[in-house]
Structure formats: structure tokens, C-alpha cells
């Protein structure tokens, strides 16, 4: 068997520059889980339907099972491990809200769900029900029935909004 071609791949993953020797046809989800041991990104349907492998690529949510290494060369990738509160080691307000509202059960969809919520709230800090639904309809959850997730997203939105308002007040 011929050895696959090795290629030089670089990207910023969770704020750190990463350099790997990998085939450029490697899927991003495998780069993350296998090569970088970032197993918070989950693998489930592998056809881009369930959202378990959702990560932010240059700020946009993408299913990392559908992105090849060559497609994200030089990109800024944020995985669930890259999300935290004001200090590292604390929970991001979105994560906090998921814990408080029971926005997860088995937890397997949760990293992807939190990442999609981050993208949603970045785009719509105070999302309407319709915006929540369209922002998260690419993430499947089989345990919660989405009730806890919707409550968590609303709470996270409120918190982010309050934070932004107070930041503006401080500036003014």
C-alpha cells in the first residue's frame, strides 16, 4: 500500500497556532479528534445533518465532518474546548445557561449545540423564537426534546444582552 501524501497543514485552533503533517483530504473532525485530541467535537451522522461536530470556522458555524483540511488551511477554528468565560477554566455564559436550565441530558449533542448557540447569539444577541429555531435546526438532540435547550438559549441571550448593555454604559 502506498503511503498517503503528507502535507503541511496550519491553522489557529482555539487561539493557538497548530502545525500538522496530515493528508489535506483529512476531515476537519478527524484533525480535531484524532490529531489534536480535542474530543469535545463529536462524531455522529457524518453527513452534516446532526450538528454534533459543529465548530466555528472564521466565526461561522460549520459541520466539521464536511470540511476537509485543505478547506480550512490557515483558518481560525474554535471548538467547544475554546469556549470559556472571562477567565479560562470558567464557563461561558452559554455553557452556564445550559447547565442551569437542563439544556442537555446525555450531553453528546451539547458541544455542537453550544457552538451553534454561540454563532446564533453573535449574530442575533436577542434572538426571536424564529431565529432560535433557524439557528439551531441543524443540531439534532434526541434526549431533551429541545425544551431545556430553548430555555438555555433564551437565558444566555438575556445574559449576553445585559452584559453588552452594561459594557456600553461603561464606555459612554
Amino acid at each position, binding site marked *: 500500500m502506498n503511503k498517503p501524501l503528507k502535507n503541511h497543514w496550519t491553522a489557529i485552533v482555539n487561539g493557538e497556532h497548530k502545525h500538522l503533517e496530515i493528508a489535506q483530504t483529512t476531515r476537519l473532525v478527524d484533525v480535531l479528534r484524532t490529531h489534536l485530541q480535542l*474530543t469535545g467535537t463529536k462524531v455522529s451522522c457524518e*453527513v452534516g445533518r446532526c450538528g454534533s461536530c459543529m465548530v466555528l470556522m472564521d466565526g461561522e458555524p460549520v459541520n466539521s465532518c464536511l470540511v476537509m483540511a485543505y478547506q480550512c488551511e490557515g483558518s481560525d477554528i474554535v471548538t467547544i474546548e475554546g469556549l470559556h468565560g472571562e477567565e479560562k477554566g470558567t464557563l461561558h455564559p452559554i455553557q452556564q445557561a445550559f447547565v442551569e436550565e437542563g439544556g442537555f441530558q446525555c450531553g453528546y449533542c451539547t458541544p455542537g449545540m453550544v457552538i451553534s448557540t454561540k454563532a446564533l447569539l453573535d449574530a442575533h444577541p436577542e434572538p426571536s423564537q424564529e431565529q432560535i*429555531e433557524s439557528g439551531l435546526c441543524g443540531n439534532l438532540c434526541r434526549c431533551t*426534546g429541545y425544551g431545556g435547550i430553548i430555555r438555555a438559549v433564551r437565558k444566555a441571550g438575556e445574559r449576553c444582552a445585559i452584559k453588552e448593555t452594561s459594557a456600553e454604559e461603561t464606555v459612554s
Partner: protein
Amino acid sequence: MLLNRKQSGKRWHLRPDGAPKVTGQLQYLTDMTLPDMIHGRVLRSEYPYARILSIDTSEAEALEGVYAVLTSKDVPGLNRFGIATPDQPVFCEDIVRYVGDAIAAVAADSPERAALALDAIRVEYEELTPLNSTDAALAPGAPELHEHGPGNVLHRTEIKRGDAKQAFATCDHIVTETYYTPRQMHAYMETEGGLFVPDEEGRLNVYAATQHGYKDRMQLARIIGCPEEDIRVVSSPIGGSFGGKDELNVQPYGALLALRCGCPVKMHNSRKESVRAGLKRHPMKIEMQTGMSREGIIQAHRVRITADTGAYATLGAPVLNFCTEHCLGPYAIPNVDVEGVSVYTNNGLSGEFRGFGGNQAIFAMEGQMDRLAEIMNMDPWEFRRRNMREKNDPGPLNQRILVTDGLSQVWEALDRSELWQKHQHPPTDPTLPPWIKRGVGAAIAMHGAGLGYGIPDPAGGRLSLNNEGKIEVAFSYEEFGQGLVATLEIMLCDLFQCNTSDLSIIIGDTDRVPHSGSSTASRSTTMAWMALQRLQSPFRSHVLAVASEASGIPADELVTGPGGIWRKGQLPAESSEVETDVQGTGKSEKKVALALEGIIQTSEEAEKLEKAERIEAKAKEGERSDFVISYAELATQGEADEWIFDTKFDYPTTPDNVVGGHYLYTYAAVAAEVEVNTLTGETKLLDTRHVVAAGPVINPMGYIGQIEGGSVMALGFTLTEDAVMQDSRYVTTNLDTYMIPTIQDIHTQLEVEAIEDLPEGDAFGPRGIGEIGSVALAPAITAAIHQATGVWVNRLPVPREQLVRPLNVPLQEGVSPS
């Protein structure tokens, strides 16, 4: 009580596994890796039904990087598995019976190389015509899929009471209908897999999901041909199961490959492989004939159930038993004639699934009730009340059951609800276009818990003070998302008025837990509660006696509390950690994670946190004179085994000899409001109310989550989900064609009302609610569809084409379609 966060107050307990889950830190068993591991894959059948003529593995074996290629010849022990009936081959020898059947397994140094090796295995088949329906399988002359016949019948059931034939002859009205239910897929987000690690002592460590680690261990020992003690099964945390991971799946292959290669083997099914090989809910055809008197009292009920159990038994027989028991509903019917048959086919593999045959039965029975009520021109809820069993009536199988008010309570609570009241005046909205129709429907159910009479259903547990000074409980239950660990924390904090940081909860590891049965059949909460009731008193007596000896204070003046033993009446204001752990950084999650995962590494941060906690606790102790002694100091007194208390008992069953008959039931009533678009046939669920009578709510967050989750799973069962097969092959092979509800498809509103009453002195405590949220929504929705459109739906998922109506808009003069 309307159950929500606000009503729950201090009982809103944050899950100890919350922070690790939302940060992605929690390692599932499929996330585990070891540096020297290799990768396993399974070769599955090319055909749903075929004879194997030859298997040639030589080319695969010769491939570089391939460590092992195994077939049936390489199974040292029993080449079969199955919880109840071990009839599924680990590797097929001569016949394949479904598309998931395994023929060989390989281990190689990369997943890609393992895939290449599978391609290099040459199998010659003689293709046979698959039995692609129960009719084909039952037809005279059909080939027998198993030797233990007769025919292709796995199991038959029967309930006969009175004289149904004669009673029908005297009935004034008879409703005859046939109901069909789909092949629903569990669609757990984490597919099957894990890590299989042989250790230096010759033991095998299995890190793979199951709902019953001890049962896996027993089956694996039988396959490998080794003592059970040579295997350790670590089985939590699990990324969803819903019954789907109760049977062995990848475990036999991972175990055999690891033992052959002498190194760790990782397995992880792709979604497509999971669909192909995994269990599904039994598709059923239920024919029902129900007759009533002029006054609307049901006199006779005739039922014929045909279940497609697929290629192997798994739990097909108990599922049929459960369906048979539940197809009478909670109604008193004098003349009953029920027969059920579970049929082997080549259509995949049907087995255990949340609701366990109740979902199908309740859909059919409640459908009959609505049709009968319409004939009587009577309110369907009132019609149900007239026919409901009385409090002291026997259960569906004429067996004695525990007397509770649950049934009438859920009936009344739903009757009062605003949503059901809408049924009297069907909702209309003049702003809606004429093709949008709305309706309201409701259904009621009693649902058995536990495995039922005649099936071994052992329970138990262990309570101890471990050498770190933690109050430790150990059960063989599993955390697959339902929130069991949080529920245990709440129970223990309630019992001992301690903090969560005083606890160590061990589950999901056969080396560390006693055999206390499985996490199935809505049984874990009840069994854990009953075990703790038995254990708390001896444990407490011992703890207080030792504390008394150490302090010189009489034992009856001492109580357990946060951090240790306190003088009675001096406890700091109620154990507050239940509420104060709002940071979600979970003080105890690390300990749970450790217990669950065994070899998974701890985070340094969590250890630091714990150290800080200890220092803080010490400081508090020093300040308070009413604090007597810490658990940690107590644990150093005497021998370690003096601190361990065990109990064993069985799940409560009816005293009457009726196989599969239940003793404890939970009750549910559900109302649903739907909106049907008669141009597209689309049904949208607008509003839902679940009333559940299952005893005290221990863990409100978990309770709401289980009912909401069960409800949405039932919504999928009702409207969209069907694992379609063509010639016994799956057409819907992934989540892009098998449609589970998304966040856009769910109820706009969903309310949960919990009725917490139990009879005074009830010895069984809180009942499990894992299934009850999923069993009665389907008939409520189809009743609502009927009110909206006039269509009686008898088939799930609801066929949209049945709801499409031509637009009855008269053409305007001068405007011609030509």
C-alpha cells in the same frame, strides 16, 4: 403541580455531569484512546437472507498492518448472544438473516486499513428470497429462519376472559379497525463503540455502553469461554440509549479482537453501520374490534397483534407480552379475546425501545375509545371515565396490582386543563386561511414498570463510608443521560442532610458496584430509593454509634449533616448545596467522572478545587462547636469493611401467577392541539399537556427533561419517523432521510403536570418516568387530527396524503383555469 423551574424552587438541582458535558471535557467511552491501540471493524452481510458458501480471509490477513481477521471458527465459547434468548450469532456460520449480520471482524493499525481489510475478505453467498413481511414469514411453506420453530413464530400471547364472541353478538355498536405502527429508530446521538483493553493480569477491560454491565459481562464470558470475573465492564457515561444499547452490539467483536491481538482495540460504528446493525422498535399491526352496549359501556374487546421481530429474538417475546398487557388500556372489559404473535422476518432486528410495546398498544386502544365515543356522540373523555377500571379492580391481566388513585387523578387533572377544555369549542382562528384546520385530542394510559412477573428482576445496592470519608453509594445502574447521578445525589442529600461534596456515587463499573439489576423499564429510581430506604438505618446507626464513642455524646443526640456529624438541632441552615452549586463548576462532578470512567484522567483543576474545599471545610469545623466529627475522621475508625452495608431484593411483582404481569403502574394523560395544513398534509403540534402520576418528584429537572424528551420522541413516532425497508434493506440509512424532530418541529408549548400522591405508607417510593412521557402522545395527536379534519388516522407515521383535501373554492365568474 405544574412542573417547571420556578415551582421547583430549591429542588432544582444542577447535574454533577453538567460542566464536563457543556465544556466537552467529558470523555465518552467512544472518545477514549490509548497510544498503542488498534482499530476494529466488522464485516456485515451483503444480503438480508443468504447461505454462506465460503469465506476466504487469506488476502485480508496478508495485508500490511492487519493484526487479526476473525470468523466463527475463532469464537472460543458460545457463538451466540441475546439478553433473553441467545440466538444471534457473533459470527454467522452458514446462514445470514439480516443486513446487519456479522461474518468477520478485523483489527488493523488504522481505521482506513481496517476498512481495506474488510474489502479483501471474499465471501461467496447463495442469495435467498428474504421474508420481507410477517405475512411472507407466516405463509405456508415459508422457509424457517430458525430451527426452534414452529414456523417463524418467536412467541405467542393470549388473554381470554368471558365470552367475547357471544358478547359481540349482543353489542349495540362495534368498532373494527386495524392499526399500523412504524419501525422507529432509537437515533441515540452517540453510535455504538468503545475501547477493549486486555491487561497484564490477563483480564479484559471493556469500556462500552450498555444498560446492564453485569449482563454484558455474563454474555461476553460465555462467548470468550472465561470466568465472568476475568472481565470488567465499564459502561457509563453513555451518549443516549433509549433501550437501543441494552443488547450487545460491538462488544463481542472488540473483546475477541483485543484478546487475539493482546492490545487495546477501538471500535466505533459509523451511523450507517449503526442503522444497519442496530435494534429498532417493533413495527406492529394491531387489529381491534371493540363492542359496547347502548349506554356506551364496553362489553367485548378482540385484539390480534402481529409484531415484526426481525431476524433474532432479542426481547421480542417480552415486548409482545407488554403490548398484550397494555392493549386493554386502563379499562374494565368483561369479555376479552386477545392473541399476539411475534414473527421472525429478515427485516433487520427489532427489540427493546422506550415504552416497550406499550406505545403501539396504547395508540390502538385509545384510537378505539375515540371512535366509540364518536358513535355515542359523547365527549371522548367522559366516555373513557365511564369505562375506566375502578381503583380496586385488578390489572389488565386480572392480576393484583398496587392500589393507587393515579388513574382518576390524571383523568381529572387533564379534564380541568385549559387545553382540554378547548376541545368543547374547537379552536378557530378567522385570520387563518381555510386550508388550515385545528383540533384538540387527548389520551390516557397506565404503564407498567419493572420487568414483570416471572422474569428475574433483582435489585440492591451498597452504601458505605469510604476511606476518603465520603458517603458512597454503588449501583449497577447506568447514566445514559436521564440524570440518574443527579437523582441519587438529591436522594442522599435528603437522607443525610449532607452536601454533594460529601458524596461519592459509583455506577457503571462491574468491578466496583454490586449487582443491582439493569437501568431499564423505568425501574432505576424506584430501585435506588428502595435500596436506600433499606440501607440508611443500619448505616446511620453505625455512623452515629462510632461518632458517639469518639465524642462521648450520646448517639441519640447526634445527626448526620454537611461534612460530618452534628449535635441534633444544631445543623447549619438546611443543607444548601443543592441550590448553591449554581456555578455549575460542580464540586462533585470530578468524583463522579472518576467513578464512571475508571482509567480516564482526572483534571488537575478539579483536584485543586477539592483540596480547597477540604481546607474550607476544616476551617468551618474549627469555628463551630456544634460540629462533632467529620466523615473523614470517622472513616479512620475501625476496619474498612465495617463501614459497608449491602442489600439485595427483587423488584416488586404481583403475587398472581401471570407471566409478565406488572404490579406498579404509572399513569399519564395527554392532551394535544394540532394544526393541519390540508394543502400539504402537514401536521404541527401547537400545544401539549402531559399529566403524570408517578409519585414524588425527586429531581424536577430530570423529570421535566424525561417527559419533554419522551414527548418529542413520541412526536417523531407519530408524524415523521419510519426506518423504511425495501426487500429487507434499509432505505433510510442516516439522519438525513430518517427524520427525527428538529427544534423547528416540536410543540410550540408543552406543559408537564406532576401528581405526586402515593398511598399512605407506600413502600415503593417515587416511580420511574423514563417511558411514561412517550406512550400516550400518538393517540392524542391522531384524535386532534380527527377533530381538525374528520380523518381517522390508523397508521403511523401519519400519512400526509390522507390529510390533503382539494381546495373547495368556487371559481369566480370570468376567471377560467384554462
